């Protein structure tokens, strides 16, 4: 469903992505991990063209992301994205956050959008908070709203960019639970995260990045069993300590 071929990206002369090649098949959950500054977030943002890239090709269901003729808003509306800092719109009520793109992008009638939003809020356990503003919710609750907001567009795939990194520890699980459930339902997911427990339970494949390169791209069992690269072993030994 998502295919990346030899993707390279530079900021000025600094190369942040080096010849990255990977794929996410329909119904697959791929976890992208690696040390800070390894290019994970940049990589995931190239999938829906929030970050442009200079070389290589990315296709989503056969549609080229980098081609100038591609209708980007349309392409993006089919891919859900969840951000590290939630990025709910603070001036809108929770339910209006979820309604917005349904109405403005998909042209759903307002009452149909609201019905959908309320159903999704119920699903993430927050229907009682529909009329609050994001600032009145905890971080974990905000991130669950953000997931509901992305799901409201009936996406064909979901991108998660460090969805739990900005959360207090006690709120991480409530978000991971929602993501785990999504994965079980067969949602195609690309997840940048440091949560190795989540990766080992939910992921089908793990992509390990370092210094802009995809160092390892392996089945979950292989990655956690016997990572081939020294860098991945080193990373895992540091992160799996506790």
């Amino acid at each position, binding site marked *: 469903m998502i295919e990346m071929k030899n993707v390279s990206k530079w900021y000025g002369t600094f190369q942040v992505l080096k010849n990255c090649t990977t794929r996410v098949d329909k119904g697959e959950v791929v976890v992208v991990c690696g040390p800070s500054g390894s290019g994970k977030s940049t990589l995931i943002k190239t999938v*829906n063209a929030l970050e442009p890239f200079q070389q290589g090709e990315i296709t989503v269901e056969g549609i080229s992301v980098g081609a100038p003729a591609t209708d980007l808003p349309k392409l*993006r509306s089919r891919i859900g994205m969840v951000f590290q800092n939630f990025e709910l719109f603070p001036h809108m009520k929770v339910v209006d956050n979820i309604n917005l793109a349904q109405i403005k992008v998909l042209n759903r009638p307002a009452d149909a959008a609201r019905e959908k939003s309320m159903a999704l809020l119920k699903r993430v356990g927050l229907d009682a908070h529909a009329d609050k503003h994001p600032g009145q919710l905890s971080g974990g609750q905000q991130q669950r709203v953000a997931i509901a907001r992305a799901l409201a567009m009936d996406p064909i795939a979901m991108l998660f960019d460090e969805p739990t990194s900005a959360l207090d520890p006690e709120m991480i699980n409530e978000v991971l639970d929602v993501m785990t459930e999504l994965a079980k339902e067969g949602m195609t997911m690309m997840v940048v995260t440091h949560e190795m427990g989540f990766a080992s339970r939910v992921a089908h494949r793990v992509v390990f990045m370092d210094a802009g390169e995809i160092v390892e791209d392996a089945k979950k069992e292989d990655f956690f069993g016997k990572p081939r690269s020294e860098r991945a072993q080193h990373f895992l030994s540091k992160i799996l300590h506790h």
Partner: protein
Amino acid sequence: MDFSFLSLPAFSGGGIYLDWVISGIKWTLLVSSLAWIIAFTVGSVLGVLRTAPVAWLRVPATIYVEIFRNVPVLVQMFIWYFVAPEIVPQVAGDWLKTKMPMPEFWNAVLCLGFYTASRVAEQVRSGIQSMPKGQTNAGLAMGLTLPQTYRYVLLPMAYRIVIPPMTTEFLSIFKNSSIALTIGVLELTAQARQISEYTFRTFEIFTIATIVYALITLTITFSMRWLENKTRVPGYIGGAGK
């Protein structure tokens, strides 16, 4: 202090000196209000353009701002009134010099409006730029176009954030309107000067002018504070930060 001169018959116009004061207040309010409508509209457009991702929109807006905010407003007043009719095509120049209704008034409105627009533009730009990049990304990622992202995501928060500095600009336009007297608009300061020349009650009439200006600006200050409270986002704690 003796304010009895206010009820004396005025030197010209058939009324009493109080009528001159009232007429001055009327022109001050008219010049300032109309100029503010121009300033807010033009300034908002320029402020948005200043943040545009493409240079051909950004550069002209930047040039405008740098010219209009770096030339003293008094000089601009003279340029609009004395210079502009000489440098535009002759047909237009003749119209400006002989046929334009209330030329002093309209030139003052345009001058103050376009000058203050450059300052409003900077406030709007700073408001937009104070929003985290993630907000734009979140808007785009759900399939909104960039103009839609401005309309529904960035501007509603940006305007809220800049209400305090915008209040300052709104006050400035009322105070700067006194400069219109240099091209012959009989606004409050001009009337005060005129009355002082005819009655020698300089101290009294400028006390009145001072109080009137203070009342106008205090009214604005309190209205803007009301607006700020009215539009406050529940649970949102200042500075967009991050």
